[in-house]
């Protein structure tokens, strides 16, 4: 193994050790909060036909046990290209091409009635944290955040506006959008590779909930998906580093 890489790894963990004590104090508080908040919430992720054993694993202290790789030291190849879509913001049509022109876009599909604590609430909380970091870093002019409803039938403009206020969304930076129709939404989901399945009860009636894998997309200024984050890897500092990497690279995406 080349020594520099190994040394880099050790240095990384030396830094980690120095920060660990502080972090663990913080996380102990956070863990208590989450357990209280999450206790009454059911998980509606798919493929669970028995008592969910995940709670058996809600123990110990989690923190991402790593320092994200430094800005510009890695590549983010193009995963796929996506076309522009016309969506509705506060009831008015707006093109994603206009919203994202010349900017890095961070996009997630959510719906306000989602009760999966590891789904939409996690994605929106991460977007909120990301908004804070972007504002602190002076990146608000170069990045745009988009939260797009998976449930255009019920996520009305009023509903979304309330949701946005709850998360203190900066209206210039973070947009909450819906598709004009179910068909438009399906085309957009297909373009992004985002799954969404209505969950039915035992009599086949729609429960108002959707099964979906949480995905947060980062797109470059040419509307190419350059990274996708899922639960467990949705670390705001990683997203910020990826944004800065895209801003400082030639954004060719290797293709």
């Amino acid at each position, binding site marked *: *193994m080349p020594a520099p*890489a*190994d040394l*880099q*790894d*050790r240095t990384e*963990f*030396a830094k980690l050790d120095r920060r660990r004590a502080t972090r663990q104090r913080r*996380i102990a*508080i*956070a863990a208590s*909060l*989450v357990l209280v*908040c999450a206790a009454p919430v059911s998980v509606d992720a*798919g*493929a*669970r*036909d*028995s008592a969910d*054993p*995940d709670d058996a*694993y*809600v*123990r*110990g202290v*989690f*923190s991402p*046990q*790593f320092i*994200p790789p430094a800005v510009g030291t*890695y590549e983010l*190849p193009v*995963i*796929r290209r996506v076309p522009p879509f016309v969506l509705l913001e506060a009831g008015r049509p707006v093109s994603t091409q206009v919203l994202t022109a010349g900017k890095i876009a961070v996009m997630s599909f959510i719906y306000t009635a989602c009760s999966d*604590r*590891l789904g939409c609430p*996690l994605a929106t*909380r991460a977007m*909120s944290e990301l908004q*804070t970091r972007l504002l602190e870093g002076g990146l608000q002019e170069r990045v745009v955040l988009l939260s797009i409803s998976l449930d255009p039938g019920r996520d009305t403009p009023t509903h979304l506006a309330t949701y946005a206020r709850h998360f203190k969304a900066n209206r210039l930076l973070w947009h909450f959008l819906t598709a004009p129709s179910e068909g438009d939404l*399906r085309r957009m*989901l*297909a*373009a992004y*590779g985002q*799954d969404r*399945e*209505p969950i039915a009860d035992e009599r086949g009636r729609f429960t108002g909930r959707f099964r979906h*894998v949480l*995905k947060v*997309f980062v797109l470059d200024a040419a509307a190419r998906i350059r990274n*996708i984050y*899922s*639960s*467990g*890897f*949705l670390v*705001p500092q*990683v997203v910020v580093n990826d944004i800065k990497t895209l801003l400082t690279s030639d954004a060719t995406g*290797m293709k």
Partner: protein
Amino acid sequence: MTTRLGHFVLIGLLWLSATALATRPVTADETCQSPFLPKVTGQEDYVYVWTLGIAGVGDGNDSLVTVDAHPTSKTYGQIIHRIAVPGRHEAHHAGFTDDRRYLWAGGLDDSYIFVFDVGLDPARPRLIKTITSFVKDTGGLVGPHTFYALPGRMLISALSNAQDNSGRTGLAEYANDGKFIRAIWMPKEAPYGYDVRVNVNLNRMLTSSFTGKRNYMRPFGELSKDAEAMKAFGDSIVVWDFHSRKPLQILRVPGAPLELRWALLPHHYYAFTGTALTHQLVVIYRKEDGTWATKNIADTGENIPVDLSLAPDDSKVYVNSFLDGTLRVYDVSNPFEGKLIEQVKLGEMANMVSESWDGARVYATNSLLSQWDKRSDYWLKAYAWENGKLVPKFTTDFNAVGRPHIMNFGSKTMRVASHPRSHPARSPAAHASTR
């Protein structure tokens, strides 16, 4: 203050998701699936078996076979569906995409990749796409082995290369729609490849090492007598920075370390592997200084241990051995000491072993490679834990079908509605070009 509180809550949510998703991993079995994948936590309805065709047996083609695994079903333990692909490709491993909608299955001989839709009708998977350009796409990688879901992508480890069919190889990434993204060759100091696994909490990825096509497609009896050829097996585990896909450290693990299994519980910063040629069960662990080391924790005997499966609470490792056809179970509650607690003679040979997420059931198949298999019956066998012993539940006869290899679990709950997006003709996967 509000911002800081929000930061704490986010970390807490991430903690929940990471600990939960660390338990949502799949290659062969539910406990070793990718952490980016929904998992089947209860009774699986189906076992999908990627099966090698045999000349003169039926249509002779490779196929994806569905076995009914639900105990209350009238067809419990029986083959209820089979979809053949044209030809024989050395069917080997398979893995789901991150939404568990599609199953990607590879052939080690011609490097074809077959994509099956298991969402529209989980009992009856459909072939929707064949990628024939893996070698060309990747600049010469051969033998797609592990199919590991990343968000929106498939990470694929290869075994060989087109230039000399040796074990020098690498990793490939494809988008879920089948478009090639990139190839990453293994470091020169550790050129072999086999399995690949990610620990998201640690941002670490492990790869293991086997041998090249000129060995794995050669009759085993002949190969084993060729001392020079037997030197061309991998002896390394590579620790990578997952996010940057850069190698950080090479661990020397002699004797072809094959399957990799990360421990699942939050504080367990270790993984297991088994060495085929030196028959060791090995723990790979993170040291205090953040670097990694290995320790042999059990000798499984001179029987070529092949597949591993890890209990969901990290307490046990299941090891299937090819030569003596035996399943051994080791207590690894102390990961630095493996204690043999159970063994079952499955048959003349054994290969894959897959445990259910709840730890109650274990499935095994017995084909390793077409050129290495012994003369034997072919089967899938199901066992369940009862009073501390593994008790046989059913045997599915594969003799009229082919050589059963990797198993993946299916569930009726993963069925998708038949709306336009799901229709094969409009599916993004169906539209993707194969170059």
